[in-house]
Each structure stands twice: as C-alpha cells, then as structure tokens.
C-alpha cells in the first residue's frame, strides 16, 4: 500500500470531510455529547478486544511491552520539555502542560492506524493495545512534577511572605490525577472484562464492539475533523514556535516508537508502526482535564490547538503511512 492509498481509508476520508466542512464554514456539527459518547464506545471496544487477545498472550512479552511503554511515557515528555524550554522560548508552566500531552497518547490516532493496517491486510500484534493503556498516565505525572518544580523555583526566588505556605508536592493527588482518569479506567476496565469473560459471552458482545467498530470510527473522525479545523484559527495566537513543535515532536516520538517496536520488542512492521503512533500521538482526551486542574498557570488554548489542531491531523494524514514506511525500512523487511 502506497502512502497515497492510505488516505483512501474511509476513516481518514471522513476526517478530511470534517476539516473541509469547517473550512468552507459549513454548519455541519455534532450534537453535544455525541463525540464524547462515541469516544466512550471506542475505548470500551478497543479495551475488550485487547483484553480478549491478551488473555492468550505471552506473559513475558506483555511485561516487556508494559515496561517499555512506561519508559516511553516518562522519556518523551522530558525530551519535549527540553525542546520547549530551549533558550526559555516557552515558560515552564506551558512547557510542562504541553509536553505532558505528547508523552501520553491519542486513542483516535491509534485506532486510525489500526484501521490503516486492517484495511491494508497487514498483521499486527496486540501488545501495542496494552501499551496504549499504560502510556495514558506516566506523562501526566511528569507534567505535574515539572510544573511543581517550576512553582518551587519561583517561590524560592521570591521573598517569603508570612503565613503563605510554599507549594508542596502532593504525591497522592498526583497519582490520583494520573490513574483515575476516566479514559484510563474505562480502557483498563474493559481490558479486564475482555480477559475475564468467557469466549461465549464475548461472542455475544462482538457484534457491538467489533463489527460496527470501523463505521463508528468514521463518524468519530468526521467530528474530530471538524474540531481539528476549528483550532486552526488559533494558530496565530499559539505562534510559530509551538506550531513547529506540534510537527517536530511527533517525528521524535514516532522514531523512538519505531526503535522500541522493532529493536526492543521485536514486533512486526505493523506492530512497530502502532508503537510509533503511541510515541508520536498527543492526548487530547485524558490529559487536558488533568493539566487544567494541575497546571492552572498554563494556557489551555495552547495545548488543544497543538494536539487537536496540529499533531492529530499530521499523524492521521502523514504520520501513519510515514511511520509504516520507516518501520519497514528500519526493520529491513
């Protein structure tokens, strides 16, 4: 499958339709709640599928996948932070909040990548699904810790005011933010259900969770296309540095993912491409609410413009076929 063909996947075409509708200022829009509802469905479905397959997976490999996923979730946001803080271009709070999104993942991008593979008839392992679940959280912690360190530094540089307490590092709250996030719980929970339930019982759920999946994904990407295009207006206020970051960072994350997938986990080209997408994609579901509350000093407009308006379209249109090529080139297949 050539790069161009990948754009003819229905899900990607619907994404393009959404962008197009918004650009010509059509009044096409989804009713409130519909996007959120579809998103719950997709997380449930992918979780069930992953759980059922992982029940029969190799424990050692699964453990390795989890380990590397966790590490990617810690390392990628640190790289991003270093880039953003280069010569103090972006203030520490915005840098911390933004980079946390890139350490986490976008389920919609991941699912589009799966649609790409399945439409092209390319095999892939199921370990990347559990990696996706794992990678939702660590970056949130990294982001919150980076912001806390910045807060401490600022507090230290100011004269102490009587009665005012120094900002502390509340580990419990930190972990709660990172692991009780709705999409983490739903994904993880659905995986457990998929692993525990009997194959017979699962067979009754599949028409809902498997068969109509691709069609629902199309509808979701249409909505996301509209939402992505709405953010394009905000490019100007975000500025060229951030927009550039929104394209450079997925290249770095995706390259790391190809390396992890091929060399460290010994996955097939399809599987490695999925890991690359985990590395390159930026969360816009789980992380924004956590950063809103945890790093109130940052501007929410920046992170949604970047993740939804820049990186998501980049990955859907360019990243997926590109990382597939990169993985097959790197693996020498």
């Amino acid at each position, binding site marked *: 499958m050539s790069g161009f063909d990948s754009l003819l996947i229905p899900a990607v075409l619907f994404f393009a339709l959404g962008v197009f509708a918004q650009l010509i200022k059509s009044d096409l829009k*989804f009713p409130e709640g519909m996007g959120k509802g579809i998103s719950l469905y997709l997380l449930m479905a992918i979780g069930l599928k992953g759980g059922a397959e992982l029940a029969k997976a190799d424990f050692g490999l699964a453990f390795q996948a989890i380990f590397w996923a966790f590490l990617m979730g810690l390392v990628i946001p640190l790289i991003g932070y270093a880039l953003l803080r280069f010569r103090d271009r972006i203030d520490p709070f915005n840098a911390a909040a933004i980079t946390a999104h890139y350490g986490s993942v976008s389920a919609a991008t991941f699912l589009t990548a799966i649609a790409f593979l399945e439409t092209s008839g390319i095999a892939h392992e199921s370990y990347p699904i559990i990696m996706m679940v794992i990678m939702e959280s660590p970056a949130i912690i990294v982001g919150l810790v980076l912001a806390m360190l910045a807060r401490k530094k600022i507090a230290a540089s100011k004269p102490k005011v009587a009665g005012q307490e120094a900002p502390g590092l509340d580990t419990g709250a930190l972990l709660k933010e990172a692991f009780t996030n709705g999409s983490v719980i739903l994904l993880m929970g659905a995986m457990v259900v998929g692993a525990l339930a009997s194959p017979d019982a699962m067979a009754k759920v599949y028409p809902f969770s498997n068969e109509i999946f691709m069609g629902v994904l199309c509808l979701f990407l249409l909505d996301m296309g509209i*939402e992505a295009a709405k953010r394009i207006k*905000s490019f100007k206020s975000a500025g060229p540095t951030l927009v550039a970051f929104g394209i450079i960072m997925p290249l770095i994350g995706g390259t790391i993912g190809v390396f992890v997938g091929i060399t460290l986990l010994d996955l097939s080209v399809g599987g490695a491409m999925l890991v690359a997408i985990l590395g390159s994609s930026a969360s816009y579901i789980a992380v*924004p*609410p956590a950063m809103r*509350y945890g790093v*109130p000093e940052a*501007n*929410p*407009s920046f992170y949604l413009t970047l993740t939804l308006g820049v990186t998501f379209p980049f990955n859907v249109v360019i990243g997926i076929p590109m990382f597939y090529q990169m993985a097959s080139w790197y693996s020498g297949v």
Partner: protein
Amino acid sequence: MSVVTHSEKVVQIITSSSLELKLIDTLEDIGIYGYTIFNVRGNGDSGLQDSHIEGDTNILIMIVLSSESYEAVMAALSKYKKKGHHLMAFSVNTEVLS
C-alpha cells in the same frame, strides 16, 4: 394575596468542567448543598470551549444563597483564581419565592 418573597443573591460561576468535582467539594465544605449546574460552551482567554471533549467543556454553576454565605463562596472562589484557575464568577440580587 400578594406574593411573599425574600432577598437573596444568585452567584453564577463559569469554568471548565475539569474543575466541577473540586468546586462542588469546596462548596460542600462551606456548607452549600444546593446548586444547579448547566453544561455550556464558550470562548475566552483559554480559547474555544466547544464541549466536544472533556477538556474543552464548560459548566455554569448557579447558586442561590443568602448574603451571609455569599462572602464565604466568593472568598473561596478568589483562592481558585489566585492559583491561576480560569473562572468567572458574578452575582445578582434576586427575590426568591418563599
């Protein structure tokens, strides 16, 4: 028969839905258990809040309260603002049907 009312204040708070659980906790700490929540969309300094994903959804919390509770609520909201949270709070005098 004339209608009997008493004077109170309506406080309305517009903010991100990400703060909902925490704000409600704060209100309950002050002793406020009566409130109404609207799911809304909006625009402002934090950019478009289109209500399509959790992170870009706004809520409006409406609280009808006495002048006494008013000060406590506004003071608590002030603290949130000082931490950098985006929230807009405003109040109006009202006559409540007794």
